[in-house]
């Protein structure tokens, strides 16, 4: 061990009105070494994000000291942290979607290639190429950034950070929305960076990845450090036990009545540009999981069933009746619910009170001739806050204050006010910690047990295997395999059907 660690945190505490996000034990230290990939893991709300935001200069600690290579380090803002060689890549891509990849790569660094506000396109291209060279995969420099999949956008952000040659790179849950290939590219980039003597602080929910990629793992729970382990001497099971304190996750054991009339039946459904010739059946009480890689078209199936996009051919039958929804409103009236993948931009209103969020989808049924009863609405919200264990400060709190898992529970609660026949969920636990994940899974299981049909679209193979009665895999817009979960398919098998 070297004499001075790359970064040392000492007695850090961070308070927010009403809560304490991070609290080290008195005199406790957390050190990070150069050349390491150091993982921070913990449930949502464990304090990982807060801790890195202190290091990156996004916020200041309430008490405590930080030392960068032995020197006292107290960045006032991101710019100062960056000048000290500390950079952060956040969970959400910070990308100007109307700009080209090239412009995005050099965003905020215009002064580097422009003199007196004028620039030579060739110079700019050279800078952009240099930034791109740090990635394992080329992305077309002329492409519009908004047209790219999320993983490419994140890689662009990585390149943007790396081009400043930081000594310490913080990566906050980059891989939450990435495909397998994207994760590999990312890991390679981080390994190269660490091999060059840099320190990576990496937050991830994917423990496989953490064990595989990182040198050390620090586990946080409720704002305190549980322990720091050498990644080689631990495993996924062990880490997740330390994270939650108790054992989690079990596979569903349901008996689906194969003879029951299907809730949903798709007959050779085709959606231009999304999927072709999809046929599948969802029976009451059954969870049908759809898995596929980025462009598999699974999302298109969900949107077509929900009336967001028009199918070009084929039919959708709901409880035996052919339907052709022209808008989500009609789908909702018919008892179809949809929990979109992009929770924060499609699933709920971050700034709207929880009770109002929950009310939104069922107001037409719960209101008296359009008039709402605020007390009833609060009572409903409180019921679901209790039932789903949504951790918040009452039904007047806003989802922005909640962690990912709790936000997702609000998004799901919206569809539980009325009993829906069919619930479509897209990546319901993306970016959600293990505890929240098993709680959401319990909700899904409960709904299935009560007789709802569930169409689960997920990038997460564990989740598909844990929850589904039937698993459908999709490849390039078509169904590539369909199997019962009783056959106990392995992840490898599923991936094989997707590639």
């Amino acid at each position, binding site marked *: 061990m070297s004499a001075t660690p790359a970064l040392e945190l000492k007695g850090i505490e961070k308070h*927010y*009105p*009403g809560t304490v*996000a991070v609290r080290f034990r008195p005199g406790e230290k957390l050190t990070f070494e150069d050349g390491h990939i150091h993982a921070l893991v913990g449930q*949502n709300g464990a304090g990982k*994000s*807060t801790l890195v*935001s202190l290091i990156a200069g*996004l916020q200041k600690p309430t008490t405590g000291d930080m030392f960068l290579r032995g020197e006292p380090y107290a960045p006032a803002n*991101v*710019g100062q942290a960056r000048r000290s060689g500390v950079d952060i890549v*956040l969970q*959400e*891509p*910070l*990308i*100007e979607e109307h700009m080209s990849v090239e412009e995005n790569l050099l*965003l*905020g*660094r*215009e002064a580097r290639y422009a003199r007196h506000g004028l620039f030579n396109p060739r110079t700019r291209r050279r800078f952009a190429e240099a930034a791109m060279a740090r990635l394992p995969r080329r992305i077309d420099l002329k492409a519009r950034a908004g*047209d*790219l*999949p999320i993983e490419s956008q994140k890689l662009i952000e990585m390149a*943007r950070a790396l081009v400043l040659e930081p000594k310490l790179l913080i990566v*906050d849950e980059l891989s939450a*929305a990435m495909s397998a290939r994207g994760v590999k590219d990312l890991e390679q980039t981080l390994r190269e960076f660490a091999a060059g003597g840099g320190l990576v602080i990496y937050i991830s929910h994917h423990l496989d990845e953490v064990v595989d990629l990182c040198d050390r793992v620090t586990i946080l729970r409720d704002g305190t450090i549980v322990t720091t382990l050498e990644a080689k001497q631990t495993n996924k099971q062990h880490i997740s036990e330390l994270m939650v304190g108790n054992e989690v996750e079990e596979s569903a054991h349901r008996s689906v009545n194969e003879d029951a009339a299907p809730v949903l039946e798709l007959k050779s459904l085709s959606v231009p*540009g999304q999927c072709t010739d999809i046929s599948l059946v969802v029976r009451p009480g059954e969870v049908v999981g759809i898995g596929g890689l*980025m*462009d*598999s*078209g699974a*999302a298109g199936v969900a949107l077509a069933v929900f009336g*967001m996009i028009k199918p070009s051919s084929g039919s959708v039958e709901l409880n035996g009746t052919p339907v052709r929804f022209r*808008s*989500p*409103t009609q*789908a*909702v*009236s018919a008892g179809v619910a949809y929990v*979109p*993948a*992009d929770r924060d*931009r*499609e*699933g709920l209103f971050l*700034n*709207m009170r929880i009770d*109002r969020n929950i009310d*939104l*989808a069922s*107001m*037409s049924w719960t*209101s008296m001739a*359009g*008039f*709402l009863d605020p007390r009833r609405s609060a009572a409903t919200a409180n019921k679901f806050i209790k039932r789903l264990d949504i951790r918040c400060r009452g039904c007047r709190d*806003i989802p922005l*204050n909640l962690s*990912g898992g709790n936000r997702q529970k609000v998004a799901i609660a919206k569809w539980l006010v009325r009993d829906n026949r069919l619930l479509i969920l897209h990546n319901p636990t993306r970016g959600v910690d293990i505890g929240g994940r098993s709680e959401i899974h319990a909700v899904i299981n409960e709904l299935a047990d009560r007789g709802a049909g569930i169409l689960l679209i997920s990038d997460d193979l564990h989740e598909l295997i844990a929850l589904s009665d039937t698993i459908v895999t999709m490849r390039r817009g078509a169904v590539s395999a369909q199997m019962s979960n009783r056959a106990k398919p392995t992840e490898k098998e599923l991936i094989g059907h997707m590639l």
Partner: protein
Amino acid sequence: MSPETDDAGLALSQPPVGIDSIDEQGGAALRAKSAHPRINYRSWGRGTQLMPAWLVPFLSLIVVTTFFGITAGSRFLSLSNFSFLLQQSAIIAIPAFGVTLIIIAGSIDLSVGSVVALTGMVGALVAVDHGLVVGLLAALVTGLLAGLCNGLAFAVLKVPSFIVTLGMLSVARGVTVKVSGSQPENVPDSWLWFGEMPGIFILFAICFMGTSVLLHLTSFGRRTVALGGQERVARLAGVRVQQVKIILFCFGGLMAALGGIALSARVGAATPDAAGGFELTAIAAVVLGGTPLTGGIGNVLNTVIGALVLSMLLNGMVILGVSGEIQLITQGVVLVGAVLLSLDRAKIGIIK
């Protein structure tokens, strides 16, 4: 299109919270986006703001009252002037209620002024020939139709509301001039009730309560707020987005018609050039009340306060003998100042 776009491209079709440059503006924006620092939603006054946002309209009301109370004395603080102020504010506030809802839904209505003039004119013309009730109905139906046109062009034909209502501003004014033959039309005596003290106040009170109930206690109001917050979320929750938008603009037209009735009654005649530039006054009242133009937040009481502050400002300056051009300048500065405040609050609205 690259072969990889489908899934993520779809999810990203909503513009992300814009960040221009990481280095310059990154700090604040990153702070807003960073995973989940828990921010107390009541602690609004953080950072640049010196006082809680909701206080600003009330405070400006107090400041304006005190200022003119001292400088203009009893002429400003008299009971008769207070009654005058109330009537003046009602004329601004009634159409501004419609604008408030439209702004909360994230749209804008620039046509109120012209629609106020048009409905007043149609009402007066019809009332002269066919009596009060038919005249009132004619005015309301005209307003409703103007709003319906706005709503249909906006929601169904998908022309931005700014452009649609800018068009209506011109069209409604043109129709007003056409039907009036460029001549003012005196209103019948029975019509005047709507422009005098108990009448105009009753009209105002009904509009105020009606709009408040509509916004706070109905599912329509909740959907209006949802539209302003994030249209796609509302759509995916099953909200009939088009329907809500059309009803909103119809409501706006109806409120403009009530404003048109009150204005023509107060003046005693409907004139083809009535309420010129009134759209700006109405928007100023909404914004001065603290409703940001970005939508998703706002309430009706604030608009009343905004209208009150505006009319006090104008009335106070008239009493002090401030010349017309200075009045105009002050009004402009106040409008920009109000937007400045509302923008600041809007940002806090996002963080809150």
